[in-house]
């Protein structure tokens, strides 16, 4: 009787030990490569390098996420980026942390050239070298390179930089979801009701 009990306990312990060792080995051997994880996270981030997340660029934030920081600190990426990060890291998506800013339509910087004094401060601030100009000469933004990060606005001593919403052309047009179109029939269930339909 005692013998049996001991045998059972010993067997269980042995099994536990064996499986524990196996799991431990697997977690070491099969651990996700940190570098590749940072790369993957970085690839998802929008690369505006705006620093709104509190890190000095997208890659530092990617490293922080890999270390376990929250995934909802990137306003330029918005919900789409949070969703991709959640998929990548297999965690629950969270709403955007308002502390770091709000999701806005894509904007680009525009220098009111008549007012520019040629101080080069914005050129130094631009993380992607999208501003051209020389000291004492007017600067201008290369629109196609601008990520809309806002970083040039504050340093400008004469406040001559505006953030302009990019006009959406036909090339940027995404056909709307059928639910989001004006209804061609009367609303059927509560979730069919759109604000516009409700007021009508």
């Amino acid at each position: 009787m005692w013998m049996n009990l001991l045998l059972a306990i010993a067997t269980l312990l042995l099994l536990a030990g064996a499986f524990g060792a196996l799991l431990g080995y697997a977690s070491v051997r099969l651990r996700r490569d940190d570098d590749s994880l940072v790369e993957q996270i970085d690839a998802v981030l929008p690369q505006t390098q705006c620093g709104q997340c509190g890190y000095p660029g997208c890659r530092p934030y990617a490293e922080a996420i890999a270390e376990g920081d929250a995934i909802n600190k990137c306003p330029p990426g918005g919900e789409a980026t949070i969703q991709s990060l959640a998929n990548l890291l297999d965690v629950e998506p969270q709403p955007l942390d308002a502390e770091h800013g709000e999701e806005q339509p894509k904007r680009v910087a525009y220098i009111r050239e008549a007012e520019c004094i040629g101080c080069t401060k914005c050129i130094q601030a631009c993380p992607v070298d999208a501003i051209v100009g020389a000291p004492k000469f007017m600067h201008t933004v290369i629109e196609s390179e601008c990520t809309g990060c806002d970083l040039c606005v504050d340093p400008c001593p004469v406040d001559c930089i505006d953030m302009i919403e990019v006009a959406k052309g036909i090339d940027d047009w995404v056909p709307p979801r059928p639910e989001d179109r004006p209804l061609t029939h009367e609303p059927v269930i509560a979730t069919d009701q759109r604000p516009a339909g409700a007021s009508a």
Partner: protein
Amino acid sequence: MGTRYDFPGGIHPPDNKQQSLQTPIRQAPLPAQLIVPLRQHRGDPGHVLVAVGDRVLTGQPLSEGEPGLSVPVHAPTSGTITAIGPHEVPHPSGLEETCIHIEADGQDQWCELAPCPADASTLERYDHLHRTGVVGLGGAGFPTRDKLQSASEAPKVLILNGAECEPYITADQALMRERPDSVIAGALALWQLVGAAQCLIGIEDNKPDAIEALRQAAEGTGIEIRVVPTRYPSGGEKQLIQLLTGQEVPSGGLPADIGVLCQNVATAVAVDRSLRLGEPVIQRITTFTGEALTRPGNIEARIGTPLDHLLFEAGLDPDQLHRLIMGGPLMGFDLTTTGLPLIKTANCLIAGTAEEFPDSPIPQPCIRCGLCEQACPVDLLPQQLYWFASAGEHHKAEHFDLFDCIECGACDWVCPSHLPLTDYYRHSKGVLRQEKKEQAEADHARQRFEERQARMEREQAEREERRRARQQAREQRRSGEPAEAGGTETGAASAAAPPGPDRETLIQRRDQARQKVEEAEAQLAEAREQTPEAVPKLERALNKHRKRLDAAEKALSDAREEARSC
């Protein structure tokens, strides 16, 4: 006749083609105003060559573009350029694009046309087509030059697409039955141009008049007229190729990959006229049909003619009009206004009444009945794609070959739950394309950021290096002449210090800051009453401006202090 092959699925909707075939092709009278969109093709808009106030002649190029990126447009009639600017164009988005407005002078005076020289090389001929603005007239608007050039070697089979499978549309049928000789001339021109071994014209068997006319015209030319059974979407490029050759165009590839070139019959006519006469694409045949028209038919009109002009010509009864569709009932899109111009890709305009095109019934849940799957001409699983697309799982839809969908709308037509399936696919594709574009932009920004990072590090290192070199030099010198070192250094420091801004600038800056604070306060007060959700944002902005004002005032007072103390 050749072996007949088949494609899966397909549907048999009522073809509704008779309404527009009662009369021969009519010429539309010249309108007083024309609106020519710069972009009437797949690609970028070209560069404008004319300015407001210029007088242009019929056929004169209005824009130019790099082959492979853009296609020029031409003046559809002689007249004066009155405006160049955004105007709504026929597109599902209803957005505006740059258009050139021409006031016609009514003389329709042609510019001198340059036919393609007889001794031109194939490439020169392709570029000639580009210069004369030839694009696919079947509906997609793919630049013809690019399509011809996509084949690295001569295709085995040249197929002219005269299937015209979508209901209501009869523009190609009218062309083939009334002008079979010009279709055959176009076919011969293309055949000679690409040097294919075989030239086939595919027509659905519901167009006996066109088949008969083409058969007679093609006698002795070696062109084969191939009749295919009527089944939508047999006129889809990939479907017609499959019907006539039994081969499948590889996913993501071009017909050229399997040695086939496919062109619409109307495009072939345009190619012939471009090469032989040097005539640019400035007119096309468009079907005007639908029960809201009292005089339906095929109308040949200049590109840029306002649609209301043409609808008037076709006898539109505005009270009856319920839906205005550009293209066919399955693949076309709704127009919300008639003030749009006719473009090169407009093969049909349907002015439907409420009885003819009733509002879509209320969609019901998908019951996975599989009717869509049986109708799909590319063997997709439409119900599965719908499942993913409607749930926003676009990547899963992509994994299920979303991009192989030709958006023919056969699944919509059979769906017993009246789901707008194709609209979901279009949305999903749009989201995915946008995502790819944004990803490319992000990758580009990352690359620039990293390069800048590297450059700054390099510069830092160089500065460090120089500083060390200077220090070394100084130390060497100091060991020689220790007395002089101090003097030079202070001199350099005072010279290096940036001169502060003068007092005027500071006052100006403070005033600007004060103005901004006042503006922000006013906005905030307004927002508190009207848009409370914007309040926190505005509060932040106000704080920022206040801080700036403080800083400006401090800078100014500092400067005054300094001035006084001096």
